[in-house]
């Protein structure tokens, strides 16, 4: 019996040989059809609203009415008002502190997960444990600090039980401390995930080679892991910074209304229907945020990082 028998039998239908799946449209058109829905949503729900904000920032207003105009007053107010200046400083202060804490925390959590946890099974379990809170409500995660930090809260009870202090600590809740704690709690995951992604791409033999060359763990972290996880750190920083700078509800609730950032100011103006100054303030913050993001992205190539 010939091994080739199946091949020598008549084929069922071999018209395929003459079929030429010629594409009627050029490649760029096909691509644009595929990205079309994304582009449309972004155009109508992001780009155009942004243009509206920019345009309205030059408008005049009175009570709840806005009038087309080309005024620079709204901007002048931002740059001359001491109150607004303080809001900007506060926002930058929060951003800087939270960025520093989440970067260090995120780096070591990612480092532990990637290089100390040896089995894939445990790495996945622990990574999931770190990611799950991301899938729950930020508002709920924020308010969950209230029973923790309050005058009669768990933390105060614990501190009192140690007899180190004889009255509850007041600075815990409704303070910068509470705000920063909640920021770190909510946004650290946005730092961990990109860094883990970067670190998992580092070739293990590089570490072995460095160890063979006599490097200790600290040197390996400093000379190999740190430089090679820069992209993840940059991506995480962008997410954390923009989230902190864009927040207004965490700061309002957890500072008890004592602190406020730029966006809090904008939210207040929006509630009072003062659209043009709110728009101007948005544009200024936007420029700061974009400058920051572009600055960070100029160091690393995000698209390449994602594609790999």
């Amino acid at each position, binding site marked *: 019996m010939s091994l080739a028998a199946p091949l020598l039998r008549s084929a069922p239908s071999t018209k395929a040989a003459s*079929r030429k799946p010629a594409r009627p449209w050029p490649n760029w058109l096909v691509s644009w059809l595929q990205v079309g829905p994304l582009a449309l949503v972004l155009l109508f729900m992001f780009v155009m609203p942004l243009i509206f904000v920019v345009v309205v920032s030059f408008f005049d207003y009175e009570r709840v009415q806005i009038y087309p105009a080309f005024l620079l007053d709204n901007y002048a107010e931002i740059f001359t008002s001491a109150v607004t200046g303080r809001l900007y400083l506060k926002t930058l202060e929060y951003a800087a502190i939270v960025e520093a804490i989440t970067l260090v925390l995120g780096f070591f*959590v990612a480092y532990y*997960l990637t290089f100390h946890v040896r089995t894939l099974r445990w790495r996945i379990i622990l990574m999931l444990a770190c990611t799950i809170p991301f*899938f729950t*409500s930020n508002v709920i995660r924020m308010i969950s600090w209230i029973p*923790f930090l309050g005058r009669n809260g768990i933390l105060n009870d614990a501190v009192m039980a140690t007899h180190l202090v004889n009255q509850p600590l007041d600075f815990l809740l409704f303070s910068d401390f509470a705000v920063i704690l909640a920021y770190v709690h909510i946004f650290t995951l946005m730092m961990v995930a990109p860094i883990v992604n970067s670190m998992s791409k580092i070739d293990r033999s590089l570490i072995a080679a460095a160890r063979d060359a006599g490097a200790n763990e600290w040197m390996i972290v400093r000379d190999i892991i740190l430089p090679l996880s820069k992209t993840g750190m940059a991506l995480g920083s962008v997410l954390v910074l923009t989230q902190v700078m864009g927040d207004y509800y965490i700061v309002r609730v957890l500072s008890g209304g004592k602190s406020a950032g730029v966006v809090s100011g904008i939210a207040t103006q929006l509630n009072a229907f003062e659209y043009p100054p709110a728009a101007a303030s948005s544009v200024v913050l936007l420029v700061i945020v974009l400058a920051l*993001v572009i600055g960070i*992205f100029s160091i690393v190539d995000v698209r390449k990082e994602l594609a790999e």
Partner: protein
Amino acid sequence: MMTEGGQPRSRSFYVLGFFFLLFLAFLYGPMIVIFVLSFQGPNGGMSFPMVGTSTTWFQGLLQATGRVGDIPSAFQRSLGLALLAAALTAVICVSAGMGFRRRFPGAALLFYTAVASLVMPSLFVSFGIALGFKELGWRTGLFTSGLGAQLTWTLPFGLMITFATIGRFDRRYEEAATDLGANSWQRFRDIIFPIILPGIIGVALFGFTLSYDEFARSSLTVGNQNTLPLEIWALTTAATSPVLFALGTVTTVVSFTVLTLAMLTIGLIVRRRAGGRLSAERSAHG
């Protein structure tokens, strides 16, 4: 645990491990407190000690009374919106991800617009959309401006995950399919889609949870029908009873359920591919 590999553990492993456990406690501690306090007795307050246990506060959620808005309808609205957002996010992102595999004029511009949408302070987007609708004389609504506002957040996130998923896809599978005569649609339907399906489920999961928990972008755009996070927000400033914690527990349980379902599905697909138990006649490709 974790002692595979034979080499002795360095001290830094234990130090970092302790540090990592603290981090987990930090992540979960407050959530657990909320969970426990939501079973506070009828006379208990918003912090410890527990004054008995009860499900009073959960029952309170079901009754639209006083300052507590209509929680059950808000929940239904949020769920519907999140499901729609998840489906749209998955479809739009996968389609865009396929488009981005080729170079095309405007690709960089579109990509950076998506990134900008991701990093944009949420309130601006909300404000801009509300302003645009107002200026054009349209009414804002849950499934128009509200959905659109959420998509400006879920789509860029989904796109990043799609890129990572498609980036891992081995193009040789596709070439093999081409070699066997598949046209571009057959290639997508039979090869690419089933292989990247776990990633797509991940994208949909992100779409769901980001929409379900979304607050700032929805705040000015959902019209006169509140979503659940907006109700929670209203409660945060108004409620003085553990009903807030009960709501937190419920919404967290919903998130966990969705997450678990998604993970189980992904796990099932992966296990099946690894060859677990196969029925003799597989019908997946009939």
